């Protein structure tokens, strides 16, 4: 089976750029399609989030189909929060059948952080087990050892948190994900190049591609909010201070500057194999970041 264009670029050691879009709450997908159109030719792949922050939305797989329809390259995000192993395997089969092969395997946020706090958290599998499940399915077998009629093929990704305040247990998990067959990693948001450098020193022993996660801040207020409310994220004080220097109404512009600087440094120092830009609702500024980081030419 032919590799996805994203996988080909990973294999060719190109510096890859991915970004992500969040599906709407509701069935009006016009905004989503608009974002996809804006981004599809500027990046190497677009992730579609899976009920991000445990907020019920249009599904990732539906968004991936739209990315394909618009001529882009999707990355399906699959979390273990809402589905047991039957449903997860079924989704993977369906994805393959629609020529969606890039899959980011995640445990998923806790139900408690979302908008359906009374829902049953599933977590029948975790991210490591999901990676292994997908690799097993590629050999033509399901998790109960039954034969599959037609085996799927994936380019599997996972996430890792280089900026975690207690990194050792996260590194053990990272090792397990590598062993389980993850080929690429899109990291959680990194705000501090020192922790990224330390992580890359560790990760370079493995034959996997690391895409540094860059979260674009829209204001110092947003950064503080994320510190208080977003699982695992800590925006360092210097970044908050820099955001705070922005004139009123120009916070996002400052956030774009900071993100572009990060991307540029990562690219120039060949720190990682690529970047994953998370604009959380401000997708339209992603091309701007790439231009400033000189990853695409102005007006491209």
């Amino acid at each position, binding site marked *: 089976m032919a590799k996805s264009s994203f996988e080909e670029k990973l294999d060719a050691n190109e510096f890859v750029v991915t970004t992500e879009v969040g599906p709407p709450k509701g069935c009006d997908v016009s905004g989503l399609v608009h974002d996809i159109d804006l981004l599809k030719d500027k990046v190497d792949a677009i992730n579609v989030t899976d009920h991000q922050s445990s907020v019920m939305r249009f599904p990732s797989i539906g968004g991936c189909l739209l990315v394909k329809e618009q001529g882009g390259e999707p990355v399906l995000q699959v979390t273990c*929060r809402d589905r047991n*192993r039957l449903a997860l395997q079924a989704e993977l089969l369906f994805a393959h059948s629609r020529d969606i092969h890039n899959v980011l395997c995640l*445990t*998923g*946020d*806790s*139900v*408690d*952080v979302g908008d359906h706090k009374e829902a049953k*958290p599933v*977590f*029948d*599998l*975790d*991210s*490591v*087990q999901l990676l*292994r*499940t997908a690799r097993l399915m590629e050999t033509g077998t399901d*998790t109960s050892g039954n034969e599959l009629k037609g085996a799927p093929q994936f380019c599997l990704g996972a*996430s*890792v*948190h280089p900026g*975690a*305040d*207690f990194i*050792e*247990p*996260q590194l*053990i*998990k990272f*090792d*397990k994900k590598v*062993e*389980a067959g993850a080929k690429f990693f899109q990291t*959680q948001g990194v705000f501090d190049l020192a922790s990224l450098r330390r992580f890359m020193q560790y990760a370079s022993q493995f034959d996997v591609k690391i895409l540094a996660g860059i979260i674009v801040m829209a204001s110092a207020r947003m950064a503080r909010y994320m510190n208080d409310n977003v*699982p*695992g*994220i*800590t925006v360092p004080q210097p970044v908050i201070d820099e955001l705070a220097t922005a004139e009123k109404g120009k916070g996002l512009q400052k956030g774009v500057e900071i993100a572009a600087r990060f991307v540029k440094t990562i690219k120039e120092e060949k720190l990682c194999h690529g970047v994953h830009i998370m604009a959380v609702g401000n997708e339209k500024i992603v091309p701007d970041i790439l231009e400033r980081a000189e990853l695409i030419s102005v007006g491209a």
Partner: protein
Amino acid sequence: MIVAERKSLEEIRRTIAPYERVLIVGCGTCATVCGAGGEREVALLHAGLRAMEARSGEGWHTFLEFTVKRQCDAEFLDALVDRVREVDAVLSLGCGIGVQAIAERFPTLPVLPGVNTSFMGMAKEWGVWDERCAACGDCRLAETAGICPITRCAKGILNGPCAGTKNGKCEANNEMDCAWVLIYQRLEKLHRLEDMRRYYPPRNFRVIPRPRRIVSKAEVAVGGNNG
């Protein structure tokens, strides 16, 4: 032990509404220790219901009190035989097992729960109870330094922490410790970190075919991967 919390007076009052004479039955074991349904709580509830009825001017119930040693054991329920003859319903302050044991023992008697059975746990400090075991039927504590990831991790995951942990706390509740941080720290002290590096396959939920039964008198069922 089993930890429970008393239901609100309003809810209890709604459930007992159809019955005139109600026997409030406490339990002398877990429900006593966790302060949800022992002799003392039976008396307090009795007084509370009376006061509430007096205030509303609808005080037509008759209440009786009694606390058995253990509601979940049929032998201790004999003490109820004479008492239940005088009432229209039993309000049990035992756990869900106690309620059902009484219902099974007295087939024609309405039995109502007065507490919400919450979990299996222990006292962290006086008045604070923490869950410790979900009776998963396939105990992993040997591999997790004696800290249960199934109950203490909000996601019950087996291969290490999620990325949501911060300051050693859990993403689902920043007052609760992240189980996997605790497990890592204790394994490190025990020089057993390799236990965490091992891959743990998906849990076997077939060991939980509800309702579960353990038969220990004849051939003992082996634990672990059986159904």
